[in-house]
């Protein structure tokens, strides 16, 4: 093949540019648009000066305090008129290994920062808000149930039959922030009660917990509050008590943190029946040695 000098130079220049692009570009740290904090900034230092900064809602569940009474589930069901068969916050009876003691684990929607359900929704009926809430618009949902299949936490439920509280029967308009009226053939889930938050109140499940086991708050303020009125620093709570997130290895980046059930304040769940299913994948709480603090703060 004959190559003129001109075209050879052209080719060489192009090859050089490609090589420079391939080698020279430093790997930029991945920053997710909905988590604005920079790497290495201590959360406490940024807890002042909130003006104009969007909220970043988080929930912390202290498993040492949860006695499995399911008041949270009942309050949620009453607040949202959750149709029968669904529990938007479900209290699981968990045991991580055969020798471990069983404990209760309330599971709301994890409001993941890398939400598998949002990725697969074909019609934007579910989306991630700036404040971290994964919303659900059941008036848009087409009922394909792909989001239920994608959610690893079983946090989504479907209206298999006509629900009791439809807009027609109650005469109420549908408001996705309240989510008190429901449509047949659509998917539903916990949405952290944005309508209550707007009014400065705690979500229904948090306010109803008689043990004060569920804390809710703004990570930007670094403060979370429970039903007993205790307001604590979020970062201190999760780092000092080795907080973890459910199925952390899946990379869904949940916004719900759990504090391990150490020195619990309640009796363990009744002796488990022999046939009780061992969780298919027990929640992990081991801190990878190369990421100290990743479990606790998870400050990106």
């Amino acid at each position, binding site marked *: 093949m004959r190559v003129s000098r001109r075209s050879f130079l052209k080719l060489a220049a192009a090859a050089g540019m490609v090589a420079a692009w391939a080698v020279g570009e430093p790997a930029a740290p991945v920053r997710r648009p909905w988590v604005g904090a920079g790497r290495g900034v201590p959360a406490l230092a940024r807890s002042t000066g909130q003006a104009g900064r969007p909220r970043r809602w988080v929930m912390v569940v202290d498993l040492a305090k949860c006695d499995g009474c399911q008041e949270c589930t009942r309050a949620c069901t009453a607040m949202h008129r959750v149709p*029968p*068969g*669904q*529990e938007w916050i*479900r*209290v*699981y*009876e*968990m045991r991580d290994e055969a020798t471990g003691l069983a404990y209760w684990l309330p*599971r709301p929607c994890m409001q993941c920062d890398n939400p*598998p359900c949002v*990725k*697969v*929704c*074909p*019609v*934007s009926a579910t989306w991630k808000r700036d404040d971290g809430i994964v919303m659900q618009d059941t008036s*848009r*949902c*087409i*009922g*394909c*149930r*792909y989001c*239920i*299949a*994608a959610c*690893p*936490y*079983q946090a*989504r*439920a*479907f*209206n*298999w*039959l*006509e629900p009791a509280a439809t807009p027609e029967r109650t005469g109420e308009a549908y408001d996705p922030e309240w989510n008190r009226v429901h*449509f*047949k*053939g*659509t*998917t539903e889930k916990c949405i952290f009660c944005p309508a209550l938050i707007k009014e400065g109140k705690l979500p229904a499940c948090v306010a109803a917990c008689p043990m004060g086991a569920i804390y809710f708050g703004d990570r930007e303020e670094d403060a979370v509050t429970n039903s007993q009125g205790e307001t604590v620093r979020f970062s201190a709570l999760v780092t000092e008590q080795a907080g973890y997130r*459910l*199925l952390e290895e*899946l990379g*869904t980046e949940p916004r719900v943190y759990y504090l391990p059930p150490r020195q619990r304040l309640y009796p363990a769940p009744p002796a488990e029946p022999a046939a009780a*299913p*061992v*969780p*298919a*994948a*027990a929640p992990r709480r081991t801190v990878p040695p190369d990421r100290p603090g990743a479990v606790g703060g998870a400050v990106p």
Partner: protein
Amino acid sequence: MSRPPHHGFSDREERLLASLSAGGTGFSALIGGLLAVVVWGLVAYATQLRHGLGVTGLRDHVLWGVYIANFVFFIGVSHVGALMSAILRLTGAEWRRPITRMAEAITFASLLMGALMPVVDMGRPDRLLTLIGHGRLQSPILWDILSITTYLTGSTLFLYVPMIPDLALLRHRYAGGPAWRRRLYTLLSLGWQDTPAQRHALETIMRVLAVMIIPIAVSVHTVVSWIFGMTLRAGWNSTIFGPYFVSGALFSGAAAVVTAMATFRWAYHLEDYITEAHFRRMGYLLIALGLAYGYFTFAEYLTPAYKMATAERGYLTAVFSGPLARLFWFTQLTGILLPVLLLTLPRIAWVPRLHRVPLLRPRPALAAAVTYAVATVVLSAAGPRMTMARVNLTALIPPWALPALVLWLFLAWLPVFHVRPIAAAVVASLLVNVGAWLKRYLIIVPTLLNPFLPIQRAPTGWAAYQPTWVEWSITAGALAGFALIYIGFSKVFPIIPIWETRQEPAPLRPAGQEGVPGVPAL
């Protein structure tokens, strides 16, 4: 066969066009029966529309079931038509000529039924148009919609374009026939006069279409598999799902073509056009596809089973030794292994010698099977009456009796299949398609029954999956609809290309003797 309403056909064309004048009581009864099943399916769907998906066995845990299995099955069957005939066309395999249109019509009919299934599965089919107005390209469902509509368009063209010369022929032949046929053929034949320029254009279009249809067809089933592969669920979270599904689709589609070939050959006496050699060639194809599919299946299950990681343990145990084990092993054996054996073993030279062993003839084997069945029934009925306590006398039958009986029946029928290779191919392809459907079911349900978090506090019956009459009725309706579309197609269009097979000097000769017939390559 009733008298054709037209004259001036050659003998050959008369036979190739037999399906256009199909009629008679048997035919009407078949159409009536299929219509009744479709109507029953529609009744079931009306029930579902009225009350919601709660009338199915689906619930929050097993949220997809029979409908999605049907969807994957139909899309899989649709695969082969265009893909197989495109590859055979491009590689100049002349023996393909009589069967390509049959295969492409399968693509058309099963794509229509397949595309219907997700709509049946939707909770809000009334919001279907939201997918167009607010569709998100990030969702694999949109990928599916795009690839299936592209494939439907492409494969319809692929079916239609080479049919144009035949339609022109029909336009002439039916000039005095019913008005709707005359108008239809005139409209669709696009003024074909068989000029060299037209022939050249047709050849060019077909070459381009044949090249284009291959990646489109591969993409369709890859994207179907990605509906599952894009989730985190154990059992679906697999990197080889794309090629795995494509291989399974080709296998089931090729089997469907064999079934269609045998049906048309038998119904319209097309023995001269669809010969034993065609079944042999398709048999080779099925063996190759079956081995590829078996390899993918093995790889797909062995890699997680070797590690038995926490996440995968649940569904693997369920299918290997748990509640779904029987169905799983039955599917693997009768859906892959047995068809491949049926297509391979009867070709072995010593197989007829099995016939010399008196015990290995069909009659003794059948007698043994009947004895086994009677013994099982009698012993299970006699048990409680003979003693005070319930004694299960069926335990007297050794556990190896059933596998031994199956093996016996298999060996006894091998010599029969040796002399009847077409019967062997048809039995094998029916088994492949039953196995293919069951495999789709087994890909969907066990994974959903074994989520990451344990299934707890589910209302009664929500933790399991038991399909209801609604789901089975709609499935039956879809299968009947597929058959109706297919038969309807053969009633209006020649199912064997007339002009493409015209210059064929002689039908394919028996094994190993056929040369390349002197047909100008298209």
